[in-house]
């Protein structure tokens, strides 16, 4: 037998969010008397980190420690409207709504502080550690706790804010397809190395080298989660998954995880990720949303790598050992290309 190595490349961009019918999300922010803030959303955290990234966005905007913010989601009685968590819209749409709400709440907090310090609110800054002080004069300061207590118990102000972010409806021209599909794009390039067994058609994914541009990485830990997990899903789509192994025939459809195939912990390949950050002009602190695009380049890169290794084009996913073996047979043997 012979094992053939090959490398395949792919590059993609990804539109952030949906535009059909307009794409709004809302947020409400308010503080407890002691200056601890709550963010109310009806957005969904399905693992992507919605609660965590909006918490950081709120803390950054309010100018308070992240520990002083808690995000509550999702309850339709308390959380204002949100389209939902899909289309990589969460960070961008909800994040922007949270910024608007937090800015409104921050303004009240600073007015309250100004009244206590007997200065102009415009001269006040937050230090992100729970203090508000006069710009350039850290000694003239008040804690966010004291400011919020004053607002509520002495001044009768609500330290709260409302936010909405809307990407307006995009009309689509029936004849030309002219439209404004989205507000910003994320980008990725991926080079995958595979090893193909020319007697069995089995493909092993050996290594992944990637570069992802996703706007500002609002939380490097959350970004890493998406990119590592998403690339795994890309591998999985490329060479394992299908609900209909004989598509379009419906026979042999998997009904359990023994027959619905996904790469296990013994199949994963080292993934060397580089993150580029070109802030989105309209993104929250320039953030875009890596949630979906991370999987996409892996599919074609794997197919291109298989071609590079044995000369077989797989244009129908998934890349099964059978398709590869049939291809090798049709060629009368592996035809390594070595183009990369």
């Amino acid at each position, binding site marked *: 037998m012979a094992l053939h190595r090959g490398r395949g490349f792919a590059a993609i961009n990804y539109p952030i969010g949906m535009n*059909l019918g307009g794409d709004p999300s809302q947020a409400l922010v308010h503080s407890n008397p002691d200056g601890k803030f709550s963010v109310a959303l009806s957005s969904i955290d399905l693992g992507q980190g919605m609660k965590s990234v909006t918490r950081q966005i709120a803390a950054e905007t309010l100018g308070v420690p992240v520990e002083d913010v808690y995000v509550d989601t999702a309850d339709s009685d308390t959380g204002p409207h949100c389209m939902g968590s899909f289309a990589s819209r969460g960070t961008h749409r909800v994040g922007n709504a949270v910024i608007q709400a937090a800015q409104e709440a921050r303004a009240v907090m600073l007015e309250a502080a100004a009244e206590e310090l007997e200065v102009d609110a415009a001269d006040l800054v937050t230090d992100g550690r729970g203090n508000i002080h006069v710009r350039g004069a850290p000694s003239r300061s008040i804690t966010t706790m004291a400011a919020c207590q004053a607002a509520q118990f002495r001044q009768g102000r609500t330290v709260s804010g409302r936010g909405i972010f809307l990407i307006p409806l995009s009309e*689509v021209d029936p004849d030309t397809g002219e439209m404004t599909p989205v507000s910003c794009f994320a980008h990725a390039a991926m080079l995958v190395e595979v090893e193909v067994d020319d007697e069995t058609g089995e493909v092993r994914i050996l290594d992944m080298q990637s570069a992802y541009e996703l706007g500002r990485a609002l939380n490097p830990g959350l970004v890493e989660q998406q990119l590592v997990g998403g690339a795994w899903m890309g591998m999985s789509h490329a060479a394992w998954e299908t*609900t*209909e192994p004989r598509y379009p025939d419906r026979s042999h*459809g998997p009904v359990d995880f023994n027959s619905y195939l996904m790469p296990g912990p013994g199949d994963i390949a080292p993934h060397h990720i580089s993150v580029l950050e070109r802030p989105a002009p309209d993104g929250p602190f320039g953030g875009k949303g890596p949630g*979906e695009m991370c999987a996409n380049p892996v599919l074609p890169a794997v197919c291109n790598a298989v071609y590079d290794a044995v000369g077989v084009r797989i244009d129908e996913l998934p890349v099964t050992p059978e398709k590869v073996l049939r291809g090798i047979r049709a060629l009368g043997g592996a035809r390594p290309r070595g183009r990369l």
Partner: protein
Amino acid sequence: MIEFRKEFFADERDDDLATIGQRVRRQDILGHVTGRSPFYDDHRFEGLLHIRCARSPHHHARIRRIDTAAAERMPGVVRVLTGRDVPRNLNTLLSLLDFGLDDEPILAETKVAYRGEPVAAVIAETEALARDAVAAVRVEYEELPHVLDPEEALKPGAPVVCDVYPTNRFIYHGKYDHQKLRYGDVEAAFARADHIVEGRYQMSPIEQAPIETCGAIAAPEVNDRYVCFTGTQGLFFSLGTAAKVLQMPSSRLHFVGGTVGGGFGGKVDSVHEPIAILGAMLTGRPCKFAWDREEEMQVGAPRGAERWYLKDAVARDGRILARKFTGYFDAGAYTRLSSYAVIKAVGHLPGPYTIPNVHADVHCVYTNRTPSTAMRGFGITGVDFAIECHMDKVAEAVGMNPVELRILNAYRDGDMKAHRREAKNCALVECCQVVAEKAGVTLSPEARAASSRTGGGGERARLPAFTRTDQDGRVEGFDTGSYARKTGSAPPPRSESTRHTTAAPQTTPSSQPRPAAPPPRAPQPPAPPLASGQRADAGGSMPPADAASPPAAPRRTGALRFSSLSGFRRR
């Protein structure tokens, strides 16, 4: 193994923020590692009932009779629901955005269009008893010819999958049976190209496979409201759908969710919430409706299969002069979200490259398989697979390094894109350069020097002098605009006529007394556009259609417009 290449675009960022950019622990992580994060099914209810569905064994069949008597008599069975119990038993998800016609029953009444389509829902004391009762539901079917391949479904004489769309195609803007993209003149470019590169690509249907299956628990709440704990990905999407299907003001619904065991697009369809709430309404007890793993895999809507044909005109030096797409989204039996995936895909073409001539015809096609829906990368993943496999073939055709080819054709700031908006904030070139550098791929000095921020605009910002358009796939008589206005108004009170009006597109009005057998229905050639228009109207405020004579509706005109937010302004 992750690095942050801060040197790129550093001048566009201030990296001195306090919390943003920090590797802060997840807010929900302690709950996750202690097993205390409250997923929808982690809320306990006294006297919880369990709902399971009886499902079609056929790809396509007329329902002659649904007999639930035996099931209802079984121990522990509280109630058996059929379509007649659903206040508005016809819906399409995107009607919340005024996009598309109601085409899918919550519980099938007159026919089933895919294997696994629900025809009855058993409510029982335990899951085991519900399963036993499901096995006792007797349904008489009259099998109909079925079609499973999207291109087969578009051929004359193909079985009609969904009566609302008699040509097995979604209708775009009330004008065409597919979505067009026309930019420049691809045919002229093909004529003068050095290379023509063609390809056919097939994306497989894929299960979102969240480890937590889709489901919801609904219970009567105080003050004549219902609480619904759900794993939905769109809380108000599901709330709005339930309000419409149950003909109930949203103020009587209290949805709780937000902690979901994976979604990946598979938890948008709002299949479970309306039935769980209906169960709670009709039994007065908490009801749980969830899929088991087998249902999740074969009944739950997957990422739809997509088939793409690409044809490129390429110059000797590797510049792509034109790219032509023909795409087929296999929507399965009902629309769900596939109609939108086509729009999103078309807005994405021709990929991250600046190509002066682009042409696309993309069809949302109905077949007799499980309806497909969103999944991570929806509308993009499949066509990106096609585009990037195709780019590899183009690189080979012109004898070029595949990375160089991408950089040469990459879109840059200021370029005009095929959907006629200027590109900005681009970074494809830089991603390619970084990977090449890491992987030891040698690039030419030009490719190494390239930048997303230079070399764009100017000539590349100009719209084509001439764009070839056509009327192919023109349909007459659709006016989904009026449809949109109608659903935009307060839902009419539940009545037979209301119910049957919404069901009117079906050729067999369910007003016929059961178990009367409907007239047999042989495979028929796709109805002419006019008929389809009438059906669209009938789906509107027309009186119940009579089986014998199709509704004679006044022809409407005017293209469908995505009316924004009508579903939401009223809140």
